[in-house]
């Protein structure tokens, strides 16, 4: 093999979990753990995994959009992990990214010309009319007409926005583009348009892609090699066709069999995994897949399996593949797994047959209880127990105190929230002033008070200039913000926080 374009060695990213006012670290979310792979020029590696597997974090840590905790990333002979700001800026000309959500990854206040042309001007490649010519050419390249230049992102459909995202990524003629779920937010017929565009660009520009996705059929269509991640670890890496013809890890096998195939004649036996992906905070001991693995052995619960290279370019992290290589390795590994699955199945009791409870099992009659047996609210019951003559006066007093209490409570909640928002707004503006871009998450701001807000993302639900939706984490005082609701804060141009800037939304 030629010199790899990208060489990732032992990449690790742990997020500290903090608690309390002083941000005491109480645990680590092990999002990416000891991930290694290589990528040759012009090659596409598909990185596949379910939500929480760490595939997106890995992609961002490679570009150093987030700082990796450990490990080394070498791009084109340069060490990315130790590069200073200057080198990094230079490197980023050759390493670009396309994000998943075409709605939040384009700045709604900028015209397409500025979105795509920004990088050209920042790197001093073009300016003025020359930029406009280059951007128009780029737009034509991704299938948009030049009339798009002076439009804003909200005027485009999802597929068109993703084309703009692609145009931005290829503007600097990079060697590597990280594609983070570029088509999963799009409709089927539009997905195919974007996939075809990505294939054309790869052919013409010799791009290398790191294609991050959860949809194996799209990944297969684009990739030369595929890496499967589970809970932060790579469990199997193989050339594309080998992964599909000889999947050796029990997780890969289950993943392949779980994908519905659009062919009604093929009703296959599915391997249905039990349970959900465990939390990456305190992942299972030993092999991380052992809690759901149908072929689990006793040692899997204690020891972590090493990566075993079963054939050229095909590595598996599973004890069933240990020591297996050479001719016929796949038949032997499959037999080992199937034997173990049968053994485990014999030991565990068969699932109870499904049956509805008797009464509910009766044929449905469309009947309704005459009165739903819900107790009346406490104040009403109390009121009803009073003498009839005094009821009216008491009811009025009760109502008045209820309204007053509600209004004052709400006012004080708003005051507190407004204070938080002022602080947050100042932080965001400071961040923007220093870095020239908006923060993507609260941790970018270096906030040490994570219990107040859980996350921050740029969206624009009402077409206002720019709006942050701040989701309350569960720990926030419900007096300030109820769980699972948003604080909606808009950064209006006036810069003065007002009641209009604050709204409440549920989700």
């Amino acid at each position: 093999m030629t010199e790899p374009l990208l060489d990732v060695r032992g990449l690790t990213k742990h997020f500290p979990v903090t608690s309390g006012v002083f941000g005491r670290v109480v645990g680590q979310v092990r999002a990416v753990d000891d991930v290694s792979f290589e990528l040759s020029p012009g090659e596409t590696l598909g990185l596949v995994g379910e939500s929480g597997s760490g595939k997106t974090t890995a992609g961002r840590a490679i570009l150093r959009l987030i700082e990796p905790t450990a490990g080394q990333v070498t791009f084109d002979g340069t060490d990315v992990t130790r590069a200073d700001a200057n080198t990094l800026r230079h490197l980023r000309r050759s390493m670009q990214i396309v994000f998943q959500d075409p709605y939040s990854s384009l700045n709604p206040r900028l015209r397409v010309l500025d979105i795509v042309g920004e990088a050209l001007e920042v790197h001093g490649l073009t300016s003025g009319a020359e930029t406009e010519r280059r951007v128009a050419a780029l737009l034509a390249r991704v299938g948009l007409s030049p009339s798009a230049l002076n439009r804003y992102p909200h005027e485009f459909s999802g597929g068109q926005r993703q084309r703009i995202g692609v145009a931005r990524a290829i503007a600097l003629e990079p060697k590597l583009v990280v594609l983070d779920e570029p088509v999963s937010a799009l409709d089927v017929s539009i997905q195919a348009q974007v996939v075809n565009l990505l294939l054309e660009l790869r052919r013409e520009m010799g791009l290398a892609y790191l294609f991050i996705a959860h949809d194996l059929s799209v990944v297969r269509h684009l990739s030369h090699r595929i890496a499967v991640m589970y809970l932060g670890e790579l469990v199997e890496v193989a050339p594309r066709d080998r992964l599909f013809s000889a999947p050796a890890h029990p997780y890969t096998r289950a993943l392949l069999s779980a994908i519905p195939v659009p062919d009604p004649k093929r009703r296959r036996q599915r391997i249905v995994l039990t349970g959900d992906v465990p939390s990456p905070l305190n992942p299972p001991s030993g092999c991380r897949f052992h809690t759901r693995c149908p072929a689990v052995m006793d040692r899997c619960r204690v020891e972590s399996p090493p990566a075993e290279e079963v054939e050229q370019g095909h590595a598996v992290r599973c004890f069933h593949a240990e020591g297996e290589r050479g001719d016929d390795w796949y038949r032997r590994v499959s037999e080992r797994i199937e034997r173990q699955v049968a053994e485990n199945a014999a030991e565990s009791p068969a699932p109870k047959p499904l049956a509805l409870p008797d009464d509910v099992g009766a044929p449905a009659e469309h009947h309704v209880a005459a009165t739903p047996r819900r107790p009346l609210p406490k104040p009403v019951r109390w009121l009803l127990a009073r003498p009839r003559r005094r009821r009216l006066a008491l009811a009025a007093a009760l109502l008045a105190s209820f309204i007053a209490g509600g209004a004052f409570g709400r006012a004080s909640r708003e005051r507190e929230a407004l204070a938080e928002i002022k602080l947050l707004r100042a932080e965001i503006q400071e961040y923007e002033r220093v870095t020239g871009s908006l923060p993507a998450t609260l941790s970018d701001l270096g906030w040490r008070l994570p219990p107040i807000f859980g996350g921050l993302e740029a969206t624009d639900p009402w077409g206002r200039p720019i709006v942050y939706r701040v989701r309350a984490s569960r720990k926030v005082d419900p007096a300030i913000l109820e769980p699972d609701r948003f604080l909606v804060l808009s950064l209006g141009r006036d810069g003065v926080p007002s009641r209009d800037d604050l709204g409440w939304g549920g989700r």
Partner: protein
Amino acid sequence: MTDAPLLTIEDLSVTFRTGAGLVRAVDGVTYDLRHGETLAVVGESGCGKSVTALAVLGLLPPHSADIPRGSIRFDGEELVGAAPERLRRLRGNAISMIFQEPMTSLNPVFTIGDQIAEGITLHRGLDAEEARERARELLELVRIPAPEQRLDEYPHQLSGGMRQRVMIAMALACRPQVLIADEPTTALDVTVQAQILELLLELQRELGMAILLITHDLGVVAETAERVVVMYAGAVVERANTLPLFERPRHPYTAGLFLSLPRLDREGRDLKPIEGTVPDPLHQPSGCRFHPRCPFAMPVCRESVPELRERQAPGSPPHLSACFYVDEHPDADLVAESLSRETPEPPTAAEGFA
């Protein structure tokens, strides 16, 4: 399985009054659902598949949505214009629904047990203790481990797959005859999606309910449904049994969907996308709504709206589609021909927005 349909939707239209004008979300949709079958309604976002389902349940927003014409009959009873009280008695009882986002469809401030018990108390008149016992049995039915303990937990304490199981338990609480599943697995991971689909089918075999499965995933359709309705821009464009639809689609849109799909089971084929974008519901194209994106478009497609016509010889299961090209060329192989055709006037992406 009897042949008399359980749920019949006939020539249904739904319009929404919006600030920008009147949106025809559903326009003359007709299909029926039979006892114990799984019918899939397929289409891309905005094609009206979910709005049709909401109309069945009487859950359209009352102040902006109208049903100017059409009828929905459940077991012979007309539901369009039925009294709200009557619909309330059917909902969650004889007809129930599970939604795409299990997190937003569960109330975060009530325990799982309370939420399941609510429907049982309301429709069956059981007291709190009996309802709780019933809720525990339902959680067991949908294979939730440690059901007793889960009853007292809140939705945020459960994973996505578990929440969807709770939704299914709630939907099954009163043993519905019809279960409407609106993208039940879209928000879930593949391995969890497999669990939920398996569970739904198993429950259907066991309980004999009919499932109306709304989805955009043709893979899910192939593996679960007996019949398929394909919708585009508010109208049904094709309706057939699953196998013939997949083997020989009789509408260019359906054929286009198959060609846009990367397939695990077929290699090395280039994707042939449907050019252009789904039309803006405020500015629907004239004639056949698919004509601006259709590789088979003819002048007539621009002017008149094609009708759903039978494409099968009498005697075989019905296979209907609405297309002038197929009217003229009944034996055309749309999939093969699409590959060699270009869209007549490919709408450049810039024309897609107004």
